[in-house]
């Protein structure tokens, strides 16, 4: 009783009348205590210690719920950044030299420290700064974050077989450009550090306290050597200062919305920017008529209250089948009404304030109301500071499909309920909603549920769940998180990156036998027609076709005049057989994750275009993997390679391949790549073709599409796209830009020298023009920025800026692989079903054997960005791993299709002569 009195609790009779939860007797908030221990004046964490530069203006760290200033940090400027970069660079070599096992051990120790001693402090700071309720930050969020740190650490300790010969990148900057949870940061930080890179985290002052605590923990007892993890707080523009530091080899942006990222990346040409981590967006939930409505409503309300840890707030759209829409709405209203809105530091709270810097979705709700939709809003209870940082749980129903609340994601606890007639309509609506990052399907009918989930375009699909996230089961549909070694490779440099010593002339730009646009359009349309059927065939059926073709090729004789030698035939047969064997076992693997099981399988991209512009035969071994995994391929092959391709096609078709699945067009020019790109295949291999016009083409986003670049072959693979732009973004160095995107009457592309930032700026300005005229580019006149010397090497300066690194291949001569399309992995859980699919899987896999076989040991990776990860391939498999490791390092990365030109021999010089 004394305890109750001490708590100031109400008399027992009153408690029984209201049955309210009493206050939870907590001591002093550990987060506040930590801030207090630093005198509420933090610094930057650099080189294992606090950096508090004197005389600096200070920035306020505010509490998310009230806007109260809880601490101050010095405003970071370029000198702080320089100090941090220097510290990171100094630590890089020693950290990389420690070796994987030691690094893994230290990271594990960091996770243990975070888990045991400082869990409460971290959870409280996260709730304080980010506004997510304490029960989440202390529980699920931190658990996921720790898993994301521990899994790569464990991988590094073991030494993964797929990582032999990989070296770290060096200093990697991580820029938190938007609301970003700790788990999202650790998602990138774990692999980054485990791979042996040193990190420089730039954060806004609002998000800084938890990150600074992480830094301090890494310094305590020298868990990580000084300089390995540096945390800097500063104004948003601070990351622009990175471009003065060539030691920073890569920049990863976290949490930024797509448009902001575009501005950041393109406005500030810093090196190797990559879109990592969660993209802003919302979750779409499909509730079919066989769903457990109560469970669905409970899960949806919980997601609306606090979205899953890796997705920033983007609202939630619920598509309910007509038969259950009314019942579901009733349940959702009841659940939303019961949500406890309040101070995020209170363990009982379910809905915290909006994340810092997020405007309330007032306008969207207002507009929906004016359009005639019903808006159900739960009145807010009395809240700290008048509750102006809070938004009440809201349900909008009866909105039109064109309504603003569906077109734009609105942050906050906002649900939009839309009735749909059938699963088909649900899939159609879910596919058309912009900015959805994940989907969930609720249906007890397993057939319907799986079928619906299968057809959704979202990267991550849950079945009858809404919160299963785990590093081993695919986190957010990101490109790099199915396989641990893929996650690690994102921050590694492959052993074959050295530029090759091959010098080959370019093919003439346009020849008479080039396929025209109508031919290409027809071929792509035929492939598109064949793609669903071929892609849905069982692996065994596809394997049978490949085996049949291999047998047929065995009997036939490769004729030298076709450009096929006996040896090529042999390796082609081997490739066919190997991929037949692999695809048979490629049905997926069940992975246990906390809360359920996930089955990860790979799915085809769709139509892959292959444009081969080199006067050497096309390495046919590239085609079996693409076909085996269910893609359809359109090849524009040079005369030297067309014969063997035709022969392969004949053999495959005789063995049962649908005619449209492999289309071969004769082509020779460097222009066929961009023509092919204009047909919008889902993926594109470009081998030695015109890179710059293609880049311009790729850079044009579809009008009105803010998240996905649907116009171009890199649809939804913005990341790959940015990677491709990387060499141009390193510094503001001159590049050659074509002034005529269509060949002029002499068949030339005129190149001019401009600065890269100018090129990109002009490009951004003219996107609309480029976009509006996909087949011709009258807008190219606008791109003529400044006439320069007619042609110069594109990469001379480039090499200089890279210092010790090998000069990256010059743009035009680069064997370029562009990726795109939707496809990839499909996971499904058994107990709690969850599906996930890579939204941006890449072009069909090439085999490791290529590196030494047909390509004559050119060994240049098809890494378009020098700091980018090796471009992953469509189907990093879940099978065949043991066997593969025995062979010639069968990595899943794309190996070179063509030897990148050495920088000293700019490929365009031949062009100049014409």
């Amino acid at each position, binding site marked *: 009783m004394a305890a109750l009195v001490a708590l100031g609790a109400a008399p027992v009779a009153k408690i029984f009348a*209201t*049955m309210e939860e009493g206050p939870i007797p907590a001591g002093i908030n550990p987060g506040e205590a930590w801030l207090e221990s630093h005198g509420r004046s933090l610094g930057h964490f650099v080189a294992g210690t606090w950096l508090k530069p004197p005389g600096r203006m200070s920035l306020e760290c505010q509490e998310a719920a009230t806007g109260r200033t809880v601490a101050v940090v010095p405003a970071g400027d370029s000198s702080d950044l320089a100090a941090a970069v220097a510290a990171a660079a100094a630590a890089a070599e020693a950290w990389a030299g420690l070796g994987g096992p030691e690094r893994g051990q230290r990271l594990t120790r960091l996770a243990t420290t975070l888990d045991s001693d400082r869990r409460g402090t971290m959870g409280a700071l996260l709730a304080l700064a980010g506004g997510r309720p304490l*029960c989440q930050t*202390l529980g699920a969020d931190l658990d996921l974050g720790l898993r994301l740190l521990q899994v790569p650490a464990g991988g590094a300790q073991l030494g993964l077989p797929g990582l032999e010969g990989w070296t770290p990148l060096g200093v990697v900057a991580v820029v938190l450009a938007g609301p970003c949870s700790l788990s999202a940061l650790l998602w990138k930080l774990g692999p980054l550090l485990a791979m042996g890179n040193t990190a420089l985290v730039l954060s806004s002052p609002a998000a800084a306290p938890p990150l600074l605590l992480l830094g301090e923990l890494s310094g305590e007892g020298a868990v990580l050597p000084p300089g390995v993890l540096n945390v800097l707080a500063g104004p948003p523009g601070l990351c622009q200062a990175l471009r003065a530091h060539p030691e920073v080899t890569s920049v990863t942006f976290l949490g930024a919305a797509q448009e902001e990222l575009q501005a950041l990346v393109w406005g500030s040409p810093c090196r190797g920017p990559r879109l990592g981590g969660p993209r802003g967006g919302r979750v779409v939930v499909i509730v079919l008529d066989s769903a457990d409505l109560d469970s669905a409503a409970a899960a949806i309300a919980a997601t609306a209250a606090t979205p899953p840890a890796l997705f920033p707030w983007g609202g939630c759209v619920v598509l309910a089948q007509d038969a259950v829409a009314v019942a579901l709405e009733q349940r959702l209203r009841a659940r939303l009404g*019961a949500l406890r809105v309040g101070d995020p530091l209170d363990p009982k709270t379910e809905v915290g304030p909006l994340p810092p810097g997020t405007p309330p979705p007032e306008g969207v709700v207002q507009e929906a109301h004016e359009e005639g939709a019903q808006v159900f809003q739960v009145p807010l209870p009395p809240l700290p500071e008048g509750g102006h940082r809070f938004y009440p749980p809201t349900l909008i129903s009866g909105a039109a499909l064109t309504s603003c609340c569906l077109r734009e994601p609105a942050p906050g606890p906002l649900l939009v309920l839309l009735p749909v007639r059938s699963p088909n309509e649900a899939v159609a609506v879910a596919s058309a909603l912009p900015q959805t990052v994940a989907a969930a399907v609720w249906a007890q009918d397993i057939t319907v549920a799986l079928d619906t989930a299968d057809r959704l375009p979202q990267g991550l699909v849950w079945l*009858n769940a809404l919160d299963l996230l785990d590093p081993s089961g695919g986190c957010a549909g990101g490109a790099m998180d199915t396989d641990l070694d893929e996650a690690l490779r994102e921050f590694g440099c492959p052993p074959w990156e050295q530029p090759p010593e091959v010098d080959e002339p370019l093919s003439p730009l346009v020849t008479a036998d080039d396929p025209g646009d109508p031919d290409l359009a027809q071929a792509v349309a035929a492939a598109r027609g064949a793609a669903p059927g071929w892609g849905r065939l069982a692996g065994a059926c596809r394997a049978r076709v490949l085996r049949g073709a291999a047998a047929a090729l065995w009997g036939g004789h490769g004729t030298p005049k076709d450009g096929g030698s006996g040896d090529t035939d042999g390796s082609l047969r081997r490739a066919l057989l190997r991929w037949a064997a692999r695809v048979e076992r490629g049905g997926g693997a069940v992975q246990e994750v906390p809360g359920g099981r996930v089955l990860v399988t790979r799915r085809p991209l769709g139509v892959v275009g292959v444009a081969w512009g080199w006067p050497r035969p096309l390495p046919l071994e590239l085609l079996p993997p693409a076909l085996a995994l269910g893609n359809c391929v359109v090849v524009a092959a040079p005369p030297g390679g067309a014969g063997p391709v035709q022969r392969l096609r004949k053999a495959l078709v005789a063995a049962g391949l649908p005619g449209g699945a492999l289309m071969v067009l004769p082509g020779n020019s460097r222009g066929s790549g961009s023509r092919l790109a204009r047909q919008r295949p889902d993926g594109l291999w470009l081998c030695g073709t015109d890179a710059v016009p293609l880049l311009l083409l790729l850079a044009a986003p579809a009008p009105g599409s803010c998240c996905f670049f649907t116009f171009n072959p890199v649809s939804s693979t913005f990341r790959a796209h940015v990677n491709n732009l990387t060499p141009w973004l390193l510094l503001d160095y001159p590049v050659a830009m074509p002034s005529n995107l269509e060949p002029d009457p002499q068949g030339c592309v005129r190149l001019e020298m401009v600065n890269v930032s100018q090129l990109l700026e002009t490009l951004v300005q003219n996107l609309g023009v480029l976009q509006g005229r996909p087949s011709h580019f009258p807008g190219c006149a606008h791109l003529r920025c400044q006439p320069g010397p007619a042609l110069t090497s594109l990469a001379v300066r480039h090499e200089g800026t890279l210092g010790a690194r090998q000069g990256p291949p010059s743009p035009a001569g680069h064997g370029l692989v562009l990726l795109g399309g939707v496809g990839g992995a499909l996971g499904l859980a058994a107990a709690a079903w969850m599906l996930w699919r890579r939204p941006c899987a890449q072009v069909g896999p090439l085999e490791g054997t290529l590196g030494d076989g047909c390509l004559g040991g050119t060994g240049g990776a098809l890494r378009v960005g020098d700091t980018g990860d090796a471009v992953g391939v469509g189907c990093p498999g879940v099978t065949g791993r043991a066997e593969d490791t025995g062979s010639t390092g069968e990595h899943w990365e794309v190996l070179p299709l063509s030897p990148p030109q050495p920088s000293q021999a700019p490929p365009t010089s031949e062009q100049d002569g014409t």
Partner: protein
Amino acid sequence: MAGRNPGTELELGWISKVYVNRPAVVRHAEQIKKWKTVKVAAGFPSGQTPLEAKLTEIRLAVEYGAREIDIVISRSLVLTGQWEGLYEEIRLCRAACGEAHMKTILATGELGSLANVYKASMIAMMAGSDFIKTSTGKEVENATFPVGIVMMRAIKEYYWQTGYKVGFKPAGGIRTAKEAITWLMLVKEELGVEWLTPELFRLGASSLLGDIEQQVFYHVTGSYALQHELAMA
């Protein structure tokens, strides 16, 4: 006792499209349990007595002045999906009870699936039960949280359909004060605070009292009571 549930016609439409996703319900129960870390009749106990005997027993009990009658449903009717039969049986019991309160024990551990629990709860309420109760306490599986969640959801649905509040009584297997508090949390979460009254929510737990006494003893004295210090529960 608050207003009695008069029951309704048998509305099979209410239960024909019922699905319960067990993993989701279990996860939900786990979550609520985690929050807290941050914070006995006729036909008894097997329900296998012939209906005639059951009815006679009830009439006798009411005659002797019983004001509350617990009945156990025939689980074979649920397992074979004879909802009309189940409805009729409970209806007859209801009539036999007269003015007395009727609690229907579903013996949820033996109903096979959560969907069956939901459907049986609905039928029992349609037939006029004033309380639905998880189990007699004598089955292998007694009042588990997932089962409780499903029954409470059925109660809420019945309330939405008819406007009658039916009571809920988990019984069996509840031994500690902590579990009892989790039940309170569950009721508050699923049904709302208006169900947290003795008229609408009860715990059937013969060994719970001892634990509560122990906890009270601890909070008052700072140490747990020795065995002889408390009366035998």
